[in-house]
């Protein structure tokens, strides 16, 4: 088995601030994903990465940057936090870009004051 860890668990930022969220997986999976979930809603894809140094935009990439520094880690940057923004950011990985299950981390809860 493996695990996905996300840091931090809770992130509080100020309007306009640049904020970075980190995700690590030890499944040795090729593909990693970042999703945003707003309260009571479904998941929306921000970025995904098929392999190290690869980046692919999802439906919600505006306002975000991502970086796949190595196979096991995928970070997401909120380039300018929006006031009153509140969402959970979920990281996932899967063995291939399609055809296999996704496994999720516990999430980072963002609050912008």
């Amino acid at each position, binding site marked *: 088995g493996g695990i996905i860890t996300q840091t931090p668990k809770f992130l509080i930022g100020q309007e306009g601030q640049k904020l970075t969220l980190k995700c690590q997986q030890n499944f040795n999976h090729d593909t990693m994903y970042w999703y945003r979930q707003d309260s009571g809603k479904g998941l929306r894809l921000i970025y995904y990465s098929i392999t190290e140094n690869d980046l692919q935009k999802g439906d919600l990439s505006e306002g975000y940057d991502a970086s796949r520094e190595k196979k096991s880690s995928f970070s997401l940057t909120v380039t300018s936090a929006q006031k009153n923004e509140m969402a959970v950011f*979920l990281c996932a990985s899967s063995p291939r870009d399609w055809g296999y299950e*996704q496994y999720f981390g*516990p999430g980072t809860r963002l609050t912008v004051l």
Partner: protein
Amino acid sequence: GDQVEQSPSALSLHEGTSSALRCNFTTTTRSVQWFRQNSRGSLINLFYLASGTKENGRLKSAFDSKELYSTLHIRDAQLEDSGTYFCAAEGGTNAYKVIFGKGTHLHVLP
């Protein structure tokens, strides 16, 4: 429109009863995955299907890629089954993206 339509959006069940959740897909779907999200926000993998049916305890899921739908049956509902259930479809116009439904909020009552 939405590629993944989940129904119902909310459901209340008494303990011991059974029901089914459904996802309809509007485009070709290669596989479907079902998750339960608990009160802490963790997404728990329930099933991954490329075809046919799978069963695990009181849960059973089916996927019909031809008719473009998947179902999740919950038998003998227990309090711990409460949560939000999501289906996620792989396929569609972009082979690399997994599209999530909006979820079914399930509340199991004593």
